[in-house]
Structures are given as C-alpha cells and as structure tokens.
C-alpha cells in the first residue's frame, strides 16, 4: 500500500489527508511537532479571550482520525532524505514515505531587531505562542503593558486579545494608516478609529528600533526609531507578517526560494514530493495573487487540489476568484474579487466608496474605469454573499449591475437595517460627478 506522509497538520495538510482518504485506500500519516490533533489556527485568539477552550477549536473529534485511518505522529522532522525517501526526526527515529506532502505553514517574521529573541518577545502563530502568551501576559499585573509591532491581521487580533484581559497595548504600525498596503484609504482610516475607540494606543508611521532586556533576559522596554521614546513593557508581539516555515528543508535538495518552489500542480523539483499551503511558493504568481499565499482558504484549496494529484488525477491548482475575510475588533470584513489599496492600485481600477455615518460600516467597490466592469468589493460591517460575487465576477458584470442587485448580495441576519438604497443613491451622485 502506498504510504502518503504529510508534514504539518494545519488546514492544508489535513484537507489533503481527508480528500486522499475519500479518494483512495492509501496509508496516510500526518506528522506534526505542534499538537497531536488538528486545530483551527485562526481560532487560537479565542482561547486566550476565554470564548473557547482548546477542545472547541478542534474541528474533528479525536476518534475521527482512527476511524478514517489517518495516522498521527507527533515529532519534529530534522531532515528529509529524498533518495531513500526517509524522514529523520529530531529524536532520532525515522519514517519512510512513498509520497510526501510538505505543509509546514509559516513562522512569524523577525527583521533582525536587537532583542528580538528575548523572553516575552513573540509572534502569534502556533499553539506554543499561545502558551507563551499565557505565561508572559496572563493578566494586567504580570503584564503592565504590551507593545505590538506590525500592523496586519495578526497584529490587530493580538491587540484585541490583550485588550480583552485589560492589558494596555501600544500598537506600532509602520505605515501611516493601518493595513493601507491592502485597504483603500477610507477603510483603513475607519479601522484606525476602531482601534483607538477600543482603547489601543495606536502609533502610526512608527518603527521599532530595539527591544531592551532586563537583567534576567526578559523584555523590559522598547525604543521607537523615529522619536527615541522608550516604552516600558512586559510583552512584545512581533506581527510583521509571516514567512514559510521551511528551515529543515534547506539541505534536502528540494528547490526553495522564500518558500518551497512548486509548479501549478503543486509538485516540487523532486518527484513524489509536493508542497501546499503557506509554505508553498509558485514559480510565478497566479493572476493578482502573491506567489506565496498565506491564507486559510488557499491552504484548504491547495489541499483539495493536491489530494487529486496524489490520487492519480493530476490537477492544476487553479484558484477561483479571490476572497478573504477578517474581523477588526467588532467590525467584520469580507472581500470578493480585487480591490487594491493606494499602493498596488492599477491605472484602470477606480473605486466607489460609501461609509455609514455610524463609522462602523463601509464598502468599497472597484471597477474598470472604461469598461465599467466590476472588479471587486470590500465590505465592512455588512455581510455579503460569496456566491453572488463569485457569479458576477465570472459573468464579467458591470458595476451598475452589481449596484442594482446589491440587495441579493446581502447576508446580514434577518431584520437588520438595509443600506442598498442609500448606497445606490450615493453611487448615482458620485458617478454624476465623475462624468
């Protein structure tokens, strides 16, 4: 029986395993150094906030794996021997595979800041990161202030987490507005205000210079690059993005760049070795996507596709229309298609922006200047239907069509106030101005 070994039990690896099981009878082993069972990484924050316990963030009950004949091995892979098809573990044992899927995910970026390896300095990615946070920031007496460095999705989540335990947070964001490399101006500014409304000390256009140690090797304070200000703190959260977690692969002969290089079939340069999820890097980015996509959904899709290829139905990874979602404190965010921030905005792309006077709902619709084709939407505080936008994007509908049918897209709970009329009115007024 062919033995499929998957390194990494995150969403990519587990999805691959599940689909391989559906399609075949092959022997499957999932290796992880993190936890025995699969858990939802995106839900780690809710454990710290007390919304859930660890057992709740496991999407499958523990009997699931045995029932589906998926073996779980706890261990850290030190080295891959691609000629003898063997994995060597840190503890000295080894495991043979016929086909190998690398799905090791990411690790938090560290940009060589002085003091970045001190105690109390950490990212928020793994279960171990969460355990550490529980040690260094259990409450606001042990942790009198935390500083977060890096204004992205994980940064704002970490801010929300610490805030939930009444720990004062200083949030350093390199850009002059939160996540504005991705979000258009109006949205980014609204989120700035949401962060401040929640009592976070938000510092825009501010960089970290160094992290200062106390006598025990634990963080004592940080220094801000621009002003030289010293901020005393007990925890520093490094959340300036993530990069592929592939150190152990370096000498294996598997071709890597920042991630494990794969073709569109998710195959590496070595036969029978595949890479999926956050750690995989496309030779050439697909469409507007990045070559490395560190997103839950793309990890899942790669798992689905990879399983097909492994089970003799060689299939290209062809992600459909881009979508994503997040939550910024109490404001939910969904995006369908492409809406660019100022930085990456192509010439042909123009935006229509609407914001509710409450300052907690807004949308931005991107469309083609000349052809009026709908390109994408960002929606904050109003839930919208994935299926609707997937359809209008596939059908190349115009922005006018989308505006006209916006009510069909609404996915808010029943009895919620609707804003389509208001949005349509404002669109008419604003487009009149454009002409």
């Amino acid at each position, binding site marked *: 029986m062919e033995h499929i070994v998957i390194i990494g039990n995150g969403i990519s690896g587990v999805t691959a395993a599940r689909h391989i099981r559906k399609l075949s009878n092959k022997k499957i082993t999932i290796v992880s150094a993190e936890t025995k069972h699969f858990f939802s990484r995106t839900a780690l924050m809710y454990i710290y906030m*007390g*919304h859930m316990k660890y057992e709740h963030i*496991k999407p499958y009950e523990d009997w699931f794996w045995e029932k589906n004949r998926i073996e779980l091995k706890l261990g850290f892979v030190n080295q891959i021997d691609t000629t003898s098809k063997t994995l060597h573990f840190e503890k000295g044992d080894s495991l043979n595979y016929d086909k190998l899927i690398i799905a090791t995910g990411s690790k938090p970026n560290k940009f060589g800041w002085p003091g970045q390896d001190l105690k109390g300095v950490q990212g928020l990615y793994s279960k171990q990161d969460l355990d550490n946070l529980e040690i260094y920031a259990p409450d606001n007496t042990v942790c009198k202030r935390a500083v977060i460095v890096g204004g992205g999705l994980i940064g704002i989540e970490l801010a929300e987490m610490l805030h939930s*335990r009444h720990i004062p947070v200083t949030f350093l964001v390199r850009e002059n507005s939160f996540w504005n490399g991705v979000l258009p101006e109006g949205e980014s500014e609204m989120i700035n205000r949401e962060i401040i409304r929640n009592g976070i000390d938000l510092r825009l256009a501010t960089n970290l210079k160094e992290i200062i140690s106390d006598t025990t090797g634990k963080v004592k304070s940080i220094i801000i690059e621009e002003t030289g200000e010293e901020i005393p703190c007990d925890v520093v959260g490094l959340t300036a993005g993530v990069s592929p977690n592939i150190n152990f692969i370096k000498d294996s002969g598997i071709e890597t760049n920042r991630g494990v290089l794969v073709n569109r079939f998710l195959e590496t340069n070595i036969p029978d070795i595949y890479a999926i999820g956050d750690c995989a890097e496309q030779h050439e980015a697909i469409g507007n996507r990045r070559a490395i996509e560190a997103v839950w959904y793309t990890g899942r899709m790669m798992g*689905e596709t990879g399983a097909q290829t492994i089970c003799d139905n060689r299939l290209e990874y062809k992600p*459909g229309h881009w979508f994503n979602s997040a939550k910024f404190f109490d404001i939910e965010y969904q995006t369908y298609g492409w809406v660019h921030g100022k930085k990456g905005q192509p010439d042909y792309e123009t935006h229509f922006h609407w914001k509710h006077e409450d300052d907690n709902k807004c949308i931005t619709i991107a469309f083609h200047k000349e052809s009026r084709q709908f390109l994408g939407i960002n929606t904050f505080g109003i839930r*919208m239907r994935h299926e609707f936008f997937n359809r209008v994007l596939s059908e190349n509908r115009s922005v006018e069509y989308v505006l006209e049918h916006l009510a069909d897209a609404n996915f808010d*709970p029943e009895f919620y106030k609707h804003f389509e009329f208001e949005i349509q009115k404002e669109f008419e007024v604003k487009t009149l101005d454009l002409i």
Partner: protein
Amino acid sequence: MSQKLNHSLSLAKPDAYHTSGKQKLFLAIGMIGLFVLVLTLFNFDEFSVWSLISAISLIALGITGFATDAYINKPEGIKNNGVWFKSISSRGLSGWLTGLVLTLFYIVLYFYPYLLGLGKDGSENSGLVAFFDPLSKLLNGGPASQWFVYGTLYTMAILLFGYKFLLKYRHNRYEQLRTYSVMFFQLAFAFLIPEFMARLNSETFSLPYYDLKNIWPLNYYNFEQYRVDSFISAGDVGLGILIFGVASIFIITPILTYKYGKRWYCSWVCGCGGLAETAGDPFRQLSDKSQVAWKIERWIVHSVLVFVVLMTTAVIYSYLGYDSEKYWLTKDVFLLSVAGFLTLIFTLTMIFKRHELGKDARYGAIGYFVIILALIGFHYFSNQSKLFIFEAETLRSSYGFLIGAIFSGVIGTGFYPIFGNRVWCRFGCPMAAILGFQQRMLSKFRITTNGGQCISCGNCSTYCEMGIDVRAYAQKGENIVRSSCVGCGICSAVCPRGVLKLENDSMKGRINPNEILLGNDVDLMDLLNQK
C-alpha cells in the same frame, strides 16, 4: 429558579475579568432581595405587602443594575470574553453549587411544596407562599400556591435577564425582536392572562388554568378529563379554547413551522425556551457537541414523544364512551383516528422523504410505528377498562412524574450550569420533537452557509445551545437543516466571518452537500460534486 437570579452573576474570576465596584454593589442589592425571600421561609414574622414589593424591587434593581454596568459602556458586539474563565459559566465550583441549589429548589417545588409554606389541605399559607399571597390576590383574587410563586419568579427571570440579553445583543435586531417576543409571551400569555381568566371563574362558569401558547404535547395534560369537561361546560368560550388547543396542534403549528421553522415557537414564544434564552444564556456553551450526544438525543427525545402519544391516547380513551348515539367521538372512533393519522404520517414520510432519513432514523421510525400500532391492536383483545396493557392513570402519573417533573424541571432547569440551558428542549421536549421532525422534513427554514468563508474556528458550535456541531456543516459549505435547531441565531451572531444566516427560502436546494467549497476553480468543483 430564584437562586439562579444572583448566582449566575457572581463569582467572576477576579484577576482577568474583575467585577467592578458598581457591579458588586448591585450584586449585594440583589442578594438582599433574595435573602428576604429566604427569610420568609422561617416564618419569623408576618411580612407585609411592602416587604414583598421591596424584595422584588431589590432583586430587579440588582439584576438590571449589574447588567447595565456590565454592558452599557462597552462597544456593541460579541461579549464572550472570559466565558470559560468564570467559574459559573464553565462548570466551576459556583456552577456546580448553583446547579445543586437549583435542583434542590425544584425538588422542593414539585414534591415538598409545603416546605415553601403551601397550606396543607386548604389551610392558610405560610412562609414564602404566603409572602406572595397579596400579589396573587391582586391578580386572580385568591391566595398564592407554590405554582404562583414559581410563575412569578419565572416571569421575573425572563424579564430581568431578558433585559440583560437585550443589552448584550443590542447590535443585533434579530436577537432583540426575539427577546422582546419571549418576554411578551411570558408576561402576557403565561402569567397575566391565565390569572385574569381565573378571576372570571364563578360558580356557574369555570375554565381551567390555561396558558394559550402552551401547546400539547408540551402541555401534556391539556386533554385530561377534568379539563375537557370544564372546557365543554364553559359554553362557547370554553369550546372555542378547546378547539383552539386542537387547532394549534394540527393546523397553526404545521403552517408556521413550514414557513419559519420551529424557531417561531421554540425561541420566540415558548416559556421553556424563553427562560433558556434569557436566564439560561450564560450557560449555552455547556451543551455537549459530540456525535454520541447527538445519537442519545435522537433516541431519548423521540421516545418521549412516543410516550406522550401513548399516554394521551390512553387518557382520552379512558373517558370516552362506547355509544355513538350519545356522542360521535367514541372510544373506537378515537382509537382508529389516532392509528389512521399516525399511519398516514408514517406512510407519507417513508414514500417522499425516505432518502433524507439516516439508517438509524428509518429503523427507529419503523420500530416506534410498529410499537404504537401493536399496542393499539392489543386493545381489541384486551379487557376494555385498560387501553394497551397499562392503566391510563398509571401512564399519566408516570409521565407527569418522570417527564413533567423530573426531566423538564429538575434536570431541565436545575442542571443549566452543568449541561447547558437547553437540556430539556434538546433531550426531552416532545413538542420540540414534533416541530423538529417537521422542520427537517417540510420547512422553508435553514441556516445558509456563505460559500467558502468558514475558518473552522468553532464559535458557532461552541455557542450552540442545542449542541449542534454547526461548524461541521459550515466548513463543508453545507446548509444546516437540523431538527433540533431552535433558530436562536447565536451561531450567526458569534461567527467572526459572516458565514451563517438564518433564513426562510424555497425547499428546493435547501440541503446542499458539497465536496468542495466555493473559491476553488469551478471545473474542480464540478468534477468533485458530480461524483
């Protein structure tokens, strides 16, 4: 019940989720009110109307003040911070203690009401029951009973904790309207109207105590002889109410459930649901989500349903006559109609919905069906004083004891802090079983999943009071169509990514199992879904 009022607010983990000074003050105020109620049990003194008013006001002030301070100054949104750190809401010591106290309260209430001060054999009340006499006299003209005390405390709990729930979900109009609805139905239909109806009773005209929204089989005693006699002897009004009671089962309920799902009743109207959604809200995360629990639930709740059908049939049968000249509904006509109706439902389900039933559901349905028909068949061979092989009275009293008292009261509410707030609704309520059966088979209601947006975080499953593993569906992109769903809407509310929406839409495409989620290439989806 009353004990829960304050305990569920207390004993927060002090370091991370401290109780503010103001909250402590309100807690103390509420406790004093509660303490007055406890004091009355010892009959130290005659308590005046004023002490009743002040005790109730203190409790009300305590709860509303606490709730206001806890929510009003925080931004609108989901407020589940620290739920699993608080002893009361995470099966900690105070959770167990509260469960214990509540359970004892229910045991006393059901089986030893004189300990609460109920006068024996019509003698005067004392203690807690006497304490409520003035209020009872004001509403219905007579002295209080243990049930009047319980009803008052129950209504207070729904109103006061309803206020707390309204604050907690003030950003969510679905939750707001639903809560106003249960508060209204409890106060008007369950509490005030029956009391006023009792006032109308006289020597010549008398209606049994009747909460109109309480439908058979939840109201399992509705067709007992004394009630039916009294409806009929109360002329047109009584007959109208009796007809309404029957129509609610066979006409009103099916239509509403078809259009809106069982939520129209379970989380908008029902009193048990009302308490679960308000006072029980802090315990919703304690329900068991395992597959084993789901299996147990299906067998128990449907067995209770079979039990109540048998019991009611036996009870009605026992007081009907033989002679069709006297009254058209004779024992035989009745029994044959019951058998005919059940056969009709069974046949229709098996013909049109067989493929939607799991293997165990099919076996279960067939098994129960055979049992009921066999028992009805026995009738023709047995001594006519009994239906089936049991005495109707034995069936009635064991149902009342086991299901009516122990299950719905002692376990259903007493164990809120241990098993969650919907234990009764999920495992025991035969009404929920009927509505759920219809919801699964013939209803426009479903929870729609939003394409591929699920991140499997588990908030939906954790906060599902009915123990449905919502995530198992959402992460597959599959709509949730489950008989047990009461449509409380909390899964949708706590979802951080906007994945779930309760809605009524056409029956077509309601159940949509997908192999691959939206977001991947269309060809791949077609390939997999066609398989």
